[in-house]
Structures are given as C-alpha cells and as structure tokens.
C-alpha cells in the first residue's frame, strides 16, 4: 500500500511471543482435558439412558397385578418367582434414604433426576466448547510459531487526514462492492490522490466552461461510477451543494429536488460508509441507489458543481453526471421529473455497462459537458427524463 508514508510498524516473530514447544505442550494439555471431559460426558449419557429405561419400566409395572419373573438368588442363581405389589416402589433418594411411593410418584422423582443430569451434561458441553476453542487456538499458534510466521503491526493513521485522499481512490474502487471499496479506498487513496486532485481541477474547469451544456451522461451510471464520481467531487460538491440548494427554489422541479434530496438522503444511508469516508455530508454521497431507485441519479446532485447548475439538464439527474450537474440544476433545463408518475418505472436505471465506465471517466475530465456524443446512450433513454 503505497501512500502510507512513514508508517511505523513492528515485526515480531510469533515464535517469540508463543514459544513453539510451550504452545504444543499447552495444546496437548488442553487435549487431555478435553478427553477427560469427553469421558465424563459419555458417563452422563449412560446415566441418562438408564434413567429413561427405568422410568419406562416403572410405568409399565403397575399394568399387571403380579408379574412372573426369574428372581436372582445370590451371585449365580435364579429361581422363578412372582413380582407382587406392583404399585409400591422404594425409591432411593440418596445418602441411604429410601422413600416408599407409588409408581407415578417414583416416575416423577426419576424425571427430576433426569433433568438434573441434563443440566450437568449441558454445563459439561459448554466447558468442552471452551476447551475446544482453546485447543484450536493453541494448535494454530503452535503451528504458526513453528512456521516462523511473524506478527506485523502498523500504526493506525488518522482517518481524517486521509479522507481527502480517499476520493481519488474512490474512483478506482467504486466498481467493486462498497465494502470493498472502503478498504480499497483507504488502500489506494494515497495513490490516487494526486491523480484525482488534478482531475478534479480539470473537472471544475470544464464545468465552468460547460455551463449550460452540461449534459449529464445519459447512461445509467453504475453505482460504482456514481459513487466514485460523487466521492471525487465530494469536497467541492459539498460546497457546491450549498449553492444548488439555494437555487432550488428557482428550479421548476423544485419539488423534485426535494424528492431527490430525500432520496439521496435515503441512499446516503445505504452508502454511509462511502459518505463517511468522504467526509461528505449526507448530500454528497448519494451514489447510486442500490436498487437503482434513484430518481436521483442526481444524487450526484450534492456533488454537483454549482457552476453547472443552470445547465444541468435533467439528464444529469439520471446520472452520475449528477455530479457535474447539480441536482438542483437539473430541473432547469427541462423539468424532467425525477419522479415520473406516469411511468411505472420510477427509479433510475442503473446500467452496468462499459459505457458507464467510460462516461464516468469522461465526466471527470470533461466535467459536466453535457453533450458528449461519444457517450454511449443509455438503453433506457426513454425513461430518462
């Protein structure tokens, strides 16, 4: 990861932290304990099964007045006999105490005993789990120590200081999932920083130039694109966002803007992480709604340059372009409603296609120049407003 300048770190050999031999010994010890507990567990299971058998027997005995059985006599003899008083049981309560009860009561006593056994089994199981976790830990450390794996620690750089750098990284990352994007962003941010900054400068210039022609790329931006673009301009957009906001009232699609804003806000949550990264306010990072909901593609909206405002065609709304054309702006050109109630499909369409990439790229350099004939036209152009 370049860009992490001056990161201090320590490298410690795992083997020094956890000496191999000792780790192995510890692992062995834990294994032994586990084996013991396993035996206990089996014993308890045996008890429980015996108990259930006994309960069944106790319940069946009173079915007959007397049973004919072979009575054990001494160590090695039986004689035929009769089991009478089939409902009277002497139950051992413990410590040499017996209670004379009926079969039902005896069964109840036995059931309670069974429950006690089960709680014992449960606690034993829990202990086993802990021991197993410990054992696996020891195993892995012993293994790693033997392999000579080292532990590397690096200081954690201040988040805020790198946020501004994150934007450049965003462009790159955007294509990947957002979560990945975050990680990547951090990773790449330094790398991208310079590039992004210059691009941003260019974009700004172009926006100013392309006032009024700012034709947001019609193409449905991919989420990533939007995000990246949005993020890129996040800083500036934040500032710009202010302006578009003020202009909103002027816009025809004022309400739309509001709607878009709201949507943006909603989306913002979805992409909170990105937003946070960018230090953007909720406005800026609206990046494409996951569900492609955005009427606002404008989400870029926050981002948009104020300069654009006037021109941003509604198309800008659709797209990431938004960043070039501020949301608020969009209404200007044609009040393309963000919400087209007539259309069943009210969301923005997210086209994930190559063109998106290109368009996004183009956008950055050309800022918002709306007319980009080279821009691939969205398949869903009809739906665009």
């Amino acid at each position: 990861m370049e860009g992490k300048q001056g990161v201090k770190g320590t490298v410690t050999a795992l083997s020094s932290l956890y000496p191999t031999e000792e780790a192995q010994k510890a692992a062995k010890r834990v294994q032994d304990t586990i084996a013991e507990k396993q035996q206990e567990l089996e014993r308890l299971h045996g008890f429980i099964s015996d108990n259930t058998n006994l309960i069944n027997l106790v319940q069946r005995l009173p079915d007959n007045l007397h049973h004919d059985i072979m009575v054990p006599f001494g160590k090695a003899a039986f004689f035929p006999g009769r089991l009478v008083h089939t409902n009277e049981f002497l139950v051992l309560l413990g410590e040499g105490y017996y209670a004379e009860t009926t079969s039902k009561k005896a069964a109840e006593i036995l059931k309670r005993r069974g429950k006690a056994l089960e709680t014992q089994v449960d606690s034993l199981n829990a202990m086993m789990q802990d021991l197993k976790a410990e054992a696996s830990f020891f195993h892995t450390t012993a293994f790693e120590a033997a392999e000579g794996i080292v532990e590397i620690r690096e200081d954690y750089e201040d988040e805020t200081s790198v946020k501004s750098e994150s934007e450049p990284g965003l462009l790159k990352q955007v294509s990947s999932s957002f979560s990945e994007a975050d990680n990547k962003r951090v990773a790449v941010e330094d790398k991208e920083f310079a590039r992004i900054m210059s691009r941003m400068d260019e974009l700004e210039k172009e926006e100013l130039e392309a006032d009024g022609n700012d034709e947001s790329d019609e193409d449905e931006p991919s989420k990533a694109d939007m995000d990246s673009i949005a993020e890129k301009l996040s800083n500036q957009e934040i500032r710009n966002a202010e302006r578009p906001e003020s202009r909103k009232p002027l816009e025809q699609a004022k309400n739309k803007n509001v709607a878009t804003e709201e949507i943006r806000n909603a989306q913002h949550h979805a992409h909170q992480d990105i937003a946070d990264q960018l230090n953007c306010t909720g406005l800026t990072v609206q990046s494409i709604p996951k569900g492609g909901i955005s009427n606002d593609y404008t989400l870029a909206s926050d981002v948009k340059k104020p300069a654009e405002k006037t021109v941003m065609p509604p198309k800008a709304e659709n797209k990431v372009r938004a960043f070039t054309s501020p949301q608020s702006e969009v209404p200007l050109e044609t009040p393309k409603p963000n919400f087209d109630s007539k259309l069943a499909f009210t969301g923005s369409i997210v086209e994930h296609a190559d063109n998106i990439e290109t368009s996004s790229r183009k956008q950055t350099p050309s800022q918002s120049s709306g007319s980009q004939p080279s821009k691939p036209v969205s398949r869903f152009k009809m739906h665009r407003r």
Partner: protein
Amino acid sequence: MAPIQFPHMVFLYGIPDIAKNHQVRKKYTIQLGENELVLKELDLLKEDANVYKLIGPVLVKQDLAEANANVRKRIEYISAELKRLDAALQDLEEKQNSKKEAILKVQPRIQSLQAGKAKD
C-alpha cells in the same frame, strides 16, 4: 556438581498436601450436592409417606420429620467441613508461596557459589 535440584524439591513441598486437600474437598462437595437433592425430594413427599434408611444391610423405617432433620444436620456438617478445608488450603498455599520466594532469593547465591566452585 549437578545443578541445584534443591530449590525445586523444596518448591514441591506442599504440593501433595494441596492435592490431597483438593481431593477431599471434591468428595465433600459431591456429598453436599447429594444431600441437598435428598432434602428436596423429602420435601416433596407426602406427609404420611414411609421413609427408610439403609444402615448396613438393614432398612430401617424412619419418620419423615426425623429424616428431614437428619439430612439437614448432615448438610450443615458437610458445609462446615468444607469451610475448614478451605482455610487449610489457604494456609498451605501461603506456605508454598513463602517457600517459593525463599528459594528464589537463595538460588542466585547458590548458583554463583557453584560457579565459583567449578572454576577451582
């Protein structure tokens, strides 16, 4: 001259005692648990139920109230024993610790002496 085993052996002093203590404690704990179970069941019995106690090969009929009282006394006795054992265990551990420290202090001296001797 063999490296000093002496400290370790002294250190081991007290360990057998502690182990014995643990064992006895375990036994008592189990008995205590059992007695508590018995008490619970006795409480659940009906008033006129017959209770017998096995004394050797003899099953002796007992009064429910009497049995209750006996079991309770036994529980108390066992708890007292456990407490005594706990105190004894503490004592033993303290002794062991002090011995450990003494050894630690003496050990370096012994080692230097040994080294000196070896040089000669």
